[in-house]
């Protein structure tokens, strides 16, 4: 049998030095946590321990916020925008120089394929700094009045699905607009943020402008509740986002929230089918489906359902699941055992509620956290798998007959983050885009990101935008 298989093409883990233990990055230095507590971060692809991480408690958060406040009042808010911008340019350049190191570290800590960290996460993170660097001395053009002011100290909490990219989305606009930062990376993916702290040192960024505190939800809660914080920026679940909104209701803190989604990917019967299949695959299997804007609800026009599903299944059968460090891998590891348990529970509810499950034959590694690419057909709108965010490689397939029905179903969600449209007819695409209540709409493409393009959701998908001119508004106090 002449079956041409890919040979393994592993990237080298030796490209990055991982220390056995990391401190907190406060006021320009790595320091031990006051109480001396630590936790471990593991490689989710094989469950091996990568490093011990400092656990920040209230006393540590206090120090970090104080450092950020001092840096804001003494240095950063007094510095001309053009000079602030130069620091951001430096950071962008160093990220480009060290991109391979970052890509490897991200893949080891997160479990996502090296192809994605190398080609998407890290280049986009660098681009984000480069883009915002140029804004630092042009803020009077940001649409927030002639003399917009920074808030002060920004508390930023980011998720584990795009650790370095989310760091860039948060820190780059905050610094460009003159705010200082205390950032808490996710508990399971702290390593690239700590490597980024080294980049700040290399760039000569003034001490205290960026502070990084590692920990869990309790650490994040100390940070959000801290009276010295002026601005909260959070990316994560809608549940936590609502809790933050409630917590800060009685304060003067302003918030940007990027929360969950249940994106509809609408395929009309005149769509270019092969392109649509690729888009559906990237929409739900990119980054193991750990994407808030994933196209997790496929809405396919009924008359092409059979044809589309046949092609889709064939394409999904070719997805390579396995070692994230292999350059040929398409689908990596699930980030944590807790997330794997959530995916399993929700997917199982699909079976229980009567949807039909399909997965290709694929052998999953014996250690680490894995879930095969999965699609459910025969899904109705009341099913949990059509309503709740799974945040995994699980696609729910629904059908529609008329464009009006597609819109009804797509908008039937408390979320409103993303949507996709596949059609060859321009007027239909624009009509559909207009009707959809979602903040980011991809037409004949999916899961594209760019620092110049505002990102953020309608309804319960959050408050505010990140990226582009619109993203600056979240970090500037403009004229009222």
């Amino acid at each position, binding site marked *: 049998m002449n079956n041409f298989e890919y040979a393994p093409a592993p990237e080298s883990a030796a490209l990055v030095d991982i220390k056995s233990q990391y401190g907190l990055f406060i006021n320009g230095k790595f320091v031990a946590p006051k109480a001396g507590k630590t936790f471990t971060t593991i490689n989710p692809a094989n469950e091996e321990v990568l490093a011990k991480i400092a656990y920040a408690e209230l006393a540590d958060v206090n120090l970090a916020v104080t450092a950020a406040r001092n840096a804001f009042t003494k240095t950063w808010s007094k510095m001309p925008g053009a000079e602030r911008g130069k620091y951001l340019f430096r950071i962008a350049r160093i990220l480009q120089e060290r991109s391979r190191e970052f890509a490897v570290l991200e893949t080891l800590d997160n479990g996502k394929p090296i192809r994605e960290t190398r080609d998407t996460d890290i280049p986009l993170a660098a*681009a984000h700094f480069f883009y915002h660097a140029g804004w630092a001395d042009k803020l009077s053009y940001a*649409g927030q009045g002639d003399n917009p002011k920074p808030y002060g100290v920004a508390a930023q909490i980011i998720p584990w699905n795009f650790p370095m990219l989310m760091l860039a989305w948060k820190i780059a606009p905050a610094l460009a607009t003159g705010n200082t930062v205390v950032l808490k990376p996710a508990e399971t993916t702290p390593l690239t943020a700590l490597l980024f702290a080294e980049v700040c040192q290399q760039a000569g960024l003034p001490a205290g402008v960026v502070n990084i505190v590692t920990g869990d939800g309790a650490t994040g809660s100390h940070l959000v509740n801290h009276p010295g914080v002026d601005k909260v920026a959070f990316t994560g679940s*809608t549940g936590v*986002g*609502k*809790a933050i*909104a*409630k917590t800060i*209701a*009685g304060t003067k803190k302003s918030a940007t*929230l990027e*929360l969950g989604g249940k994106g509809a990917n609408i395929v009309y019967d005149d769509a270019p089918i092969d392109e649509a299949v690729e888009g559906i695959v990237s929409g739900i299997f990119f980054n193991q489906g750990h994407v808030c804007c994933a196209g997790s609800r496929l809405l396919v026009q009924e008359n092409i359902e059979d044809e589309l599903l046949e092609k889709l299944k064939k394409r999904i059968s070719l997805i390579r699941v396995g070692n994230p460090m292999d350059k040929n891998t398409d689908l990596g590891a699930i980030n944590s055992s807790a997330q794997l348990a959530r995916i399993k529970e929700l997917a199982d509810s699909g079976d229980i509620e009567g949807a039909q499950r399909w997965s290709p034959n694929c052998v999953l590694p014996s250690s680490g956290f894995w879930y095969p690419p999965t699609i459910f057909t025969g899904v109705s709108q009341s099913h949990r798998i059509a309503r709740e965010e799974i945040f995994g490689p699980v696609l729910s397939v629904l059908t529609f007959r008329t464009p009006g029905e597609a819109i009804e179903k797509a908008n039937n969600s*408390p979320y409103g983050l993303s949507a996709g449209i596949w059609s060859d007819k321009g007027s239909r*695409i624009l009509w559909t*885009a207009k009707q*959809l209540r*979602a*903040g*980011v*709409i*991809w*037409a*004949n*493409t999916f899961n*594209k990101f*760019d620092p*110049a*393009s*505002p*990102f*953020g959701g*309608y*309804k*319960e998908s*959050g*408050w505010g*935008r990140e990226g*582009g*001119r*619109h993203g600056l508004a979240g970090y500037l106090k*403009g*004229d*009222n």
Partner: protein
Amino acid sequence: MRIDVMKTYKLFINGNFPRSESGRVYEILDAKGKFLANPCNGSRKDLRESVVAARNAHSGWSGATAFNRGQVLYRVAEIMQGRIDQFVAEIVAQEGAAPAAAKIQVQSAIDTWVWYAGWCDKIDSISGSTNPVSGPFYNFSIPESLGVVAIFADSKPSLLNLVSALAPVIATGNTAILIASEKHPLCAITLAECLATSDVPAGVVNVLTGKVDQFVTWVGSHMEIDGVDATGLSKKDLVEIKELGAENLKRVHSFNEAKSTKRMISFMETKTVWHTIGI
């Protein structure tokens, strides 16, 4: 001697002027302490019906052309112009203002309304953008109306505050539920009469009178209200509406200036559309 015809002040819901379904009213006095009117003490059900009306009106109003919305809003200013004396009398009675000062307030309110009418077909140009992304994509961001917005306008100057809050909300395609000042509600009802006799479609604006602290709780917890202009609320009520509003992530904002693009943009959502470029 002729006896004046006294006016019954009613609610404005879905283009009609019903009494409160609760059958309740409350008494308001003029600035000198004399009986002035018995406006409706609006109930939670009145609010719910207003939200249904506003939600149903949203697709039509936001789907109308910006030019058309501008024409309709300008028409409202024309009708207000003809009601100047009535507004002045209400402001004098409630706020205790001198007639000359009241007239200046009314004129200023009408001019503010015209200012916002002119924004309908311009705000998208100011707050939208095309975005130069790195790749073969045409990418643009456009602002769209948020949906249903509840408004608590400040009580004094009553008409100017109403107009400064309401006009920007509906100019961009939102539909509104206006909670009148508890103390000075009369101008809100008279404004509703202007809206009813111009070309504003039923349900686009609904006006309720009653106890503000009750409305704060009901508005805050209503899951179909998307935004709140909380300019007229006390600090305590503001905190309550933000806490309750967190449940569906309501956009809650307060403003200082009567004429400001921020009053429009704060109740809009930015939609970004990517499309491939190719042959």
